[in-house]
């Protein structure tokens, strides 16, 4: 069983290689078959391995494929390590990935670069699988950079539009800032432990570093830097909304379900380091709490359907960071899984709408789509309900409630983190249902031209089912008490205990979360359906409009970075346009050229001048020899 491990990432890589080399010669059917098929087969292998894993419950599967290199005692291998944490990620990546590939075969059907799209998507899935299965940090870093590259390629997929290329470069450069911090963290880990093997680092770190040691803090913060960049958290979150320039399936797979949660994976994978550095862990929680709030407010003001979802992704990853920061590891991973289901669903629905409306993304020109696209409407509603964490029925409720609960009652939790989470939950349900009401209700404004086909609706329905029932594998102890998910993760990740004093009143907090979420829906209903006249009256207020502009621009972070980094850099680059250091060498070349012109003038072909030259030269030599 273990021997099949290498096939899981190898198949998408094989698909990518085939498509890169021969993609232009294959028919569209063959490209779709290779593209979606390779991920599908690796999903099947994952299922096979996963069932074996769940049945036997080994600590982990391990397979060493080959030794990568061996230099001065540093000998990382290409080896795969599969434990419960990787299994969860593996399932999400391959299954959600497969559904999105299936959807893409219909979504991208008319695109002329069909094979390039699937080549990049397969490469992405392969790299992401390497990232989560790697047994050492170097291999993890390879996957980490691989997904970054694919993200760049796919954001800029429609490269004819300069704005898309700009968005791609922005994403690449900003994540690179975090990656550099992470690379330094890896160097420091290697310096301390002489290895990058994850399991040995996790085992040795508590012996080498006492709790709260500076070294642990530094390494944890550097790794956090990498995670923050990849996961679009404060202060490196500005690339994610612009990343929506890519095709919608890309946004669904890379910028919602999988890649952006790589930061969550990294922190969870290295949880020992974070537990050794409580200050770093508190930073994780704080970053999560602040990010989920500011991204939520920004989502409230966007008109572009995909940008709302992008800000919502930032905000939901903020919840995951919050969970990791308070030590609720399994709750964070649970929310990752549920989020992957409903956010992929929402993006795919958005894609179906955008395709049906001739690439119209502005919500103000949508409306009344409820009757026209019933399947999309119902699945979108389910996704939205899950995102807004409507109580009892949706998976999102169970995952988010767990995070909120531990943010308050966990050992590292406090009232501020809880309040931020609760406020975020309220905003989430307001902006989610604002999106639903504007898009699907009211009068229709744009003609629906392509009703979505079966290849589009089937993945939607499957993801909708997962968004509903996915939550039932982990229920609170006072409500069903099912702990399948946390039991699965228990051997890998430490559990968390809630404070006894609050535990008796847990139902009150659950009720509060439910009320807040329903309240958000009501506010959205009030403003966008029941009495739309409220909105213009709000718009007359200057403060409200200023706030709206501020939030719409993502809290001015783009402008801030523009002033702080981009403009000074461009200014310096302009100053140095003629390359000051290089001028010495160009000067040398110029001098040589000048002499060349001077001497080539003497080669004029007039014989008498040559004779004259010789005579003058002879006279000069004679004079000098006589004088000396």
């Amino acid at each position, binding site marked *: 069983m273990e021997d099949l491990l290498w096939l899981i990432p190898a198949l998408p890589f094989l698909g990518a290689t085939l498509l890169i080399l021969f993609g232009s010669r294959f028919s569209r059917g063959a490209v779709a078959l290779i593209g979606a098929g390779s991920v599908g087969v690796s999903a099947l292998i994952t299922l096979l391995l996963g069932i074996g894993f769940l049945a036997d419950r080994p600590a982990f599967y391990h397979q060493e494929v080959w030794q990568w290199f061996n230099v001065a005692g540093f000998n990382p291998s290409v080896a795969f390590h599969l434990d419960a944490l990787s299994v969860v990620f593996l399932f999400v990546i391959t299954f959600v990935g497969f559904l999105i590939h299936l959807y893409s075969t219909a979504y991208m059907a008319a695109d002329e670069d069909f094979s390039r799209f699937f080549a990049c998507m397969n490469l992405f899935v392969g790299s992401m699988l390497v990232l989560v299965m790697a047994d050492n940090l170097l291999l993890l870093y390879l996957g980490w950079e691989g997904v970054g590259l694919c993200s760049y390629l796919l954001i800029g997929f429609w490269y004819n539009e300069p704005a898309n290329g700009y968005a791609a470069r922005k994403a690449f450069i900003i994540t690179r800032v975090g990656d550099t911090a992470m690379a330094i963290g890896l160097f420091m880990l290697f310096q301390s432990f002489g290895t990058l093997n994850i399991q040995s680092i996790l085992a040795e770190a508590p012996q080498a570093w006492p709790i709260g040691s500076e070294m642990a803090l530094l390494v944890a913060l550097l790794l956090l830097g990498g995670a923050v960049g990849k996961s679009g958290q404060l202060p490196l979150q500005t690339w994610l909304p612009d990343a929506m320039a890519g095709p919608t399936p890309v946004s669904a797979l890379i910028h919602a379900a999988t890649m952006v949660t790589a930061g969550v994976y990294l922190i969870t994978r290295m949880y020992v380091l974070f537990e050794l550095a409580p200050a770093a862990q508190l930073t994780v929680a704080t970053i999560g709490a602040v990010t989920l709030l500011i991204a939520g407010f920004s989502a409230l003001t966007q008109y572009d359907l995909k940008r709302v979802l992008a800000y919502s992704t930032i905000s939901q990853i903020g919840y995951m960071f919050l969970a990791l920061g308070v030590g609720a590891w399994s709750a964070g991973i649970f929310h990752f899984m549920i989020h992957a289901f409903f956010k992929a669903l929402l993006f795919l629905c958005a894609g179906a709408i955008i395709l049906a409306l001739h690439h119209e993304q502005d919500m103000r020109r949508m409306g009344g789509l409820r009757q026209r696209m019933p399947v999309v409407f119902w699945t979108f509603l389910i996704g939205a309900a899950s995102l807004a964490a409507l109580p009892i029925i949706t998976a999102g409720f169970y995952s988010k409630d767990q995070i909120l609960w531990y943010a308050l009652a966990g050992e590292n939790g406090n009232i501020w983190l809880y309040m931020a989470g609760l406020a975020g939950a309220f905003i989430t349900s307001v902006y989610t249902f604002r999106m639903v009401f504007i898009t699907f209700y009211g009068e229709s404004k744009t003609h629906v031209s392509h009703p979505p086909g079966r290849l589009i609706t089937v993945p939607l329905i499957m993801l909708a089912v997962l968004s509903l029932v996915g939550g039932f594998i982990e229920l609170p102890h006072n409500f069903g008490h099912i702990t399948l998910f946390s039991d699965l993760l228990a051997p890998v990740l430490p559990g968390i205990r809630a404070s006894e004093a609050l535990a008796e009143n847990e139902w009150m907090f659950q009720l509060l979360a439910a009320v807040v979420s329903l309240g958000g829906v009501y506010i959205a209903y009030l403003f966008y359906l029941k009495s739309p006249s409220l909105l213009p009256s709000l718009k007359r207020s200057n403060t409200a409009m200023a706030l709206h502009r501020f939030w719409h621009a993502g809290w001015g972070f783009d402008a801030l970075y523009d002033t702080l980094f981009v403009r000074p850099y461009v200014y310096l680059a302009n100053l140095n346009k003629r390359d000051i250091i290089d001028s010495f060498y160009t000067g040398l070349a110029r001098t040589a050229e000048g002499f060349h012109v001077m001497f*080539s003038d003497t*080669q*004029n*072909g*007039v*014989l*008498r001048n040559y*004779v*004259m030259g010789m*005579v003058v030269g002879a006279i000069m030599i004679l004079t000098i020899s006589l004088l000396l």
Partner: protein
Amino acid sequence: MSTVSMEAALLLAGILFMLGLISVLIRRNIIFMLVSVEIMLNAAGLAFIVAGTRWVQPDGQIMFIFILTMAAAEVSVGLALILQIYHQLKTLDSDAANIMKG
């Protein structure tokens, strides 16, 4: 047998050399330039002879025979070149032969 003083002989050689040199510089006809070069060679040969007489050594005359041989070779090559130039350019003007200027 009257003797010629060395100073006078060297002066003659110098005058001959300068005459040759000046006519190389001012003439444009290639044949005249070749003739002038011959005069310069002979001036140099004369200087060798005079020097050989002065030191009572045969080296000066040997050198003169060398110069004669070399002059013969030079004239044969030079005349062949002049023929070619005339063939190509239909003129003996040395300034016309400047088409190979760098």
